[in-house]
């Protein structure tokens, strides 16, 4: 069984009638994700790609009580409310696609989620894919193929390029998790590394971080306790100070959050550092003893 999402896990889509959400609902369905319902307030009675739309998560779960994963596509100012709605209705894993959610909103939603044992992935995550099984989010299926490498990255495109590199070297992914590019994340590297370390379908992990925040540094000590090799790729070495680079979280503030400090912490704790994307597959293979 894959981590977090899988073929048989019933899933809902919050904000399903939006242009992006409805397009990716089609892609997710094509991929085999078991989407049972969608939610957009005021749009009940419609359907998107054959999936019924409800006004509230509560109404949706009344019809589909088995659903326990949701992806959230609501605009930033409504994201907190959508997450709280999913938590209150009993959803256990919430994949937050929405980007640039206000920091205080995410702190609050995260606090409620943690107190109720709910997992939030993101905000600003491209989603999660277990190749061949399920896709929740907007990752392009072409980038992924089934395999035994777990990947976790802050950035969407970097996730795709890593998988792309692995695939070109005949490796594949057990699960690829987009951690999200927002400054406050529902789930951090350590939590995902822990899931991969326990996952019988994963042999090694590639993690990709970037400047800003401390999530990479925080995960470093855990890596030294892991049974599986971790290849780490950190971007932003060439980034200027004090300027936010696209992702709300990607900013070097003072001496905090530089690529160097992250690489240093990871390397010290046994992670194998990749300098470029194309180095990654070779380093993974080497770490696995060339067995694969």
């Amino acid at each position, binding site marked *: 069984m894959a981590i977090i999402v899988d073929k048989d896990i019933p899933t809902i889509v919050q904000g399903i009638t939006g242009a992006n959400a409805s397009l990716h609902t089609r892609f997710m369905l094509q991929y085999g994700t078991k989407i049972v319902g969608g939610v957009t307030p005021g749009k009940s009675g419609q359907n998107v790609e054959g999936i019924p739309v409800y006004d509230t998560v509560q109404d949706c779960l009344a019809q589909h009580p088995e659903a326990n994963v949701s992806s959230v596509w609501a605009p930033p100012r409504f994201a907190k409310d959508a997450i709280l709605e999913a938590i209150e209705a009993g959803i256990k894993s919430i994949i937050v696609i929405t980007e640039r959610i*206000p*920091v205080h909103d995410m*702190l609050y939603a995260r*606090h409620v989620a943690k107190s109720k044992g709910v997992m939030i992935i993101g905000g600003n995550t491209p989603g999660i894919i277990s190749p061949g099984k399920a896709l929740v989010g907007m990752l392009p299926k072409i980038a992924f193929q089934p395999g035994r490498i777990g990947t976790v990255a802050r950035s969407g495109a970097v996730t795709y390029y890593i998988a792309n590199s692995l695939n*070109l070297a005949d490796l594949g992914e057990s699960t690829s998790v987009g951690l999200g*590019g927002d400054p406050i994340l529902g789930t951090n590297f350590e939590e995902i590394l822990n899931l991969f370390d326990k996952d019988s379908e994963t042999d090694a992990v590639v993690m990709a971080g970037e400047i800003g925040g*401390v999530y990479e540094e925080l995960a470093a000590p855990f890596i030294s306790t892991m049974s599986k090799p971790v290849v780490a790729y950190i*971007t932003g070495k060439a980034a200027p100070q004090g300027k936010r680079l696209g992702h709300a979280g990607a900013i070097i503030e003072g001496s905090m959050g530089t690529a160097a400090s992250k690489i240093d912490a990871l390397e010290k704790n046994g992670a194998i550092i990749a300098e470029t994307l194309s180095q990654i597959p070779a380093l993974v293979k080497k770490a696995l003893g060339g067995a694969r």
Partner: protein
Amino acid sequence: MRLYEYEAKGLFRRHMLPVPNSVVVDENSLCELYKVIYPVVIKAQTFAGGRGKAGLVQFATQRGEAEEKIAGMLGKKHAGHTVDKVLVEAKVSVERELYLAVVVDRLEHRPMIIASQRGGMDIEEIARKEPDAILKYYLNPGADLHAFMARNIASGLGLSGVLLASGAHIINKLYDIFRGYDCKVAEINPLVICGGGTVYALDAKVDLDEDAMFRHPQLRELGIVARHEVGELTEREKIAKQAGIPYVDLDGDIGVFPGGAGFGIAAIDLIQHYGGRPANFMDSGGAPTQEKLRAMLSLLLDNPRVKAIFGARFGGISRCDDWAKAVVKYVVENRPQKPMIMRMAGNMEEQGRKILEQAKAENPELFSKIKVYAYDTPIEHVIEETIRAAQTQD
């Protein structure tokens, strides 16, 4: 988004947090100086530290002296920023200096109030020299700071008697500002106690969450608008901001036209790694419109410094067909002469490729310098080719 000291103090004043009387002046508003009572402190408005050493904080005992010193400051460069405003503030007689801040604690994921009796120093410096002199108080996200909590902190700061109430009041107000304006940091350093028991925020540092500005229209009344976290925008950055494009000018010659932000950061690294020099950082955001893609290309191709474009689209929420459509339209309309080496893969890739091929077939000449690789070409290959193209353009 960091506020200037005078902006932060404006916010404080609006919320009954005591600051010394002051005026903000630039070269056109020196007449405002009649409003302050001398002696005054003159502080250049810039974000970088070390203002004191750079001569950007000075004292004056009368107007003539103030004007002279202000003239010496305006126009000065400090850490890449040109001083164009100074804060002229009544000098107060300080008895004690305290430190007070409310911040988002990234480890605990909670608001944290930090207080210390060692005001005036950097909090990092206090932490290094006297870690025990720092009081930390955590709150749950969204929780109220009850009056008694503020009194507990004030008491921890060594305040008693009437100062206990003034201190608690200031702590409550600072937390109100932190919550009410979505601050990442709201700091008073130093918070000073003057003769007679009056208390002032002598310096003010406020860092707002740019992503929450939409719910604070009242900031506009204070003249506070979105900008860089630190420093001023370049002309091109201003244009990009207008168009809603995260864009940062760098000093190289390769225009970077990536998909998302994360790969934008990676692309800069990779270009440097292979010996090239990126001209910019840029992010399309998720699912950019035709309009936005067009503006992105303009930003790069209109930049005289740019010699070649490196482009990449890995279609996730952003679709390859939209991307291809925008590239074709731009090229047909603007006939750029610079080489564009790109790679396109992901969602709607097939449709995108058809659009590009058809355009090339119709205008082979126009597209002669434009290459679009696919899934099976490693991105590093594309970058290396762009670097070579830029060098050839010299």
